């Protein structure tokens, strides 16, 4: 993949193709967000965003041709992020399983809204 002496020079057309692909995907994600897919909206949006991010990472940031160590570093970052999210969500999403009272907040709204509700006549 990577010859030691001269650095890999990415051909110009790859940059242009990738850039236009990113533009197109941006338009798609905006369009899709207007259609109400219920729960899937988030997944679709994240899917498209991940494709765009990988395009930037592999071609603009040369991960495709560069040393594998950089890809390892990039994926470790993503791995730790997912660990953090998944294990924290194991707590925040399953609090009421054993004792239902332990889920959610007693007073849903912060106290500042009680004063705001009563005074808000204009909006």
């Amino acid at each position: 993949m990577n010859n030691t002496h001269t650095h890999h020079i990415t051909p110009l057309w790859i940059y242009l193709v990738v850039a236009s692909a990113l533009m197109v995907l941006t338009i798609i994600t905006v369009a899709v967000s207007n259609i109400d897919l219920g729960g899937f909206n988030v997944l679709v949006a994240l899917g498209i965003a991940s494709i765009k991010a990988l395009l930037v990472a592999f071609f603009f940031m040369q991960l495709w041709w560069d040393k594998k160590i950089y890809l390892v570093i990039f994926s470790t970052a993503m791995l730790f992020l997912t660990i953090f999210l998944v294990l924290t969500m194991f707590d925040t999403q399953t609090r009421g399983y054993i004792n239902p009272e332990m889920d959610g907040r007693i007073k849903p709204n912060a106290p500042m809204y009680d004063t705001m509700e009563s005074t808000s006549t204009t909006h």
Partner: protein
Amino acid sequence: MNTFPETHYLNAPEKGIKSWLTTLDHKRIGVMYLWAVIFFFLFGGALAMIMRSELFFPGADFMTANFYNKLFTLHGAVMVFLFIIPAIPAGLGNFFLPIMIGAKDVAFPRLNLASWYVYLAGALIAVLSILLGGFDTGWTFYTPYSTSTDSAVISVVLGAFIMGFSSILTGINFIVTIHKLRAPGIHWFSMPLFIWGLYATAIIQVAATPVLAITLVLLILERTLGIGIFDPAMGGDPVLYQHFFWFYSHPAVYVMILPGMGIISELITSFSRKKIFGYKAVAYSSLGIAFISFLVWGHHMYTSTQSVLASTIFSVLTFLVGIPSGIKIFNWLATLYKGSIRFTSPMLYAFSFLILFSIGGLTGIFLGSMGTDVHLHDTYFIVAHFHFTMMGGTVIAFLGGLHYWWPKMFGRMFNEKLAQILAVLIFIGFILTFVPQFINGLHGMPRRYFMYVEQYTFNNQLSTIGAFILGFSLFTAFANLFVAIWKGKPVGDNPWGVLGLEWKTTSPPDPHNFSVTPEITHGPYDYDKVLAKPTLDL
């Protein structure tokens, strides 16, 4: 008789404070880190002595509750952020990493100096909080107390945030140096194990500290703008703060212990003159600890209204992280088999590390299992557990490393007899200080208590006596080392007669580490093939 080398890094390229403060030499930066780190250790230790004397009697003796709360918080913050995290990596690591892999310097010398000044800036801002009236939230800054108290929380949080960058810069430096700057002939599995310890530590420093940075920024924003992420009064969730905090802080305790374990691998092999038992096992267990340490933070939160499902998952993962530490202890033990053991002062520290860290590790099993942790959480059992692992582990290993490398760093020998006596005294003082705390903790004495119920008095008094013995002998041990810089007799290249690459250069080392680049003919632990004559008869 050994002669003191004429030019070395201490007086070349030139003497004088200005050249030290603008140096790019990793050895000088390491020495500067050591002074700051030892100073903060003694400062934190003094705070602990005041607290222990207050706790001698159950009631309020010579201070108010508020003052005591500020004392234990400052003791925690100084010891964690200012001493134990930078101590071995930035102090001894900076000095010896390039030498032990045959490099001229770390990969980014300017970043290394920047990390020193960032550390100093963070330390000053954190210590400034004392002038602003101190802060009384505990070193964990749990919300909503930390967002509702009016003490100087923002100043110390800002200080810790800045020091986080110093830790990240050191981590980046070490990872790149170990990957790119190994001398030809030194491969991944012929590196000393101290380097493996530093490598695993650097991975954690680089991967965990950013989350601490964002957590502390969110805490400052919570206090100033009331953003409502962690503060329940603004609709936030304090348990989410604990998730964010411990996601950094549990890997951070492995940042503290892994370099210590690296030093112990060096000490055990050097002073039993024997090849390390299971090199790959010890190296891989360092990496294993580094990665598994990111999965286990929830065991700090079993009783914090965390869901039972999450506690169960964290509990089973916590038991996985205990296995590599066990493997290391048994590997060190097996290294002693058929060795030629010399009980020099570093070896005494290594032995007391093995005993104290084993106690620390085994008491961790009580805390990893959910059933027993409910009774023990936030009691003095926890205080004793983390002092056995952090102080019995990292501080004893740090002292062992200091005594082992002091002749190499400053070219002069300390009083070995006195050092051996002090090592034993420290061990005894340590046991007397913290074993009574285990008993109090089992009987339910909560931690961070200014006044306690009469039934805990006897153990507290024992612990205070032990604290004075420990404090005195620690202070004398450091004094013994410092005096040696001027009064000690020259030691020559290899005072202990051991095989590490750092013992092939002069002591103190040449400004560019090696006046003549050494060709690597044997591994760091080939005591079965190579004989090294000590240049100092001990």
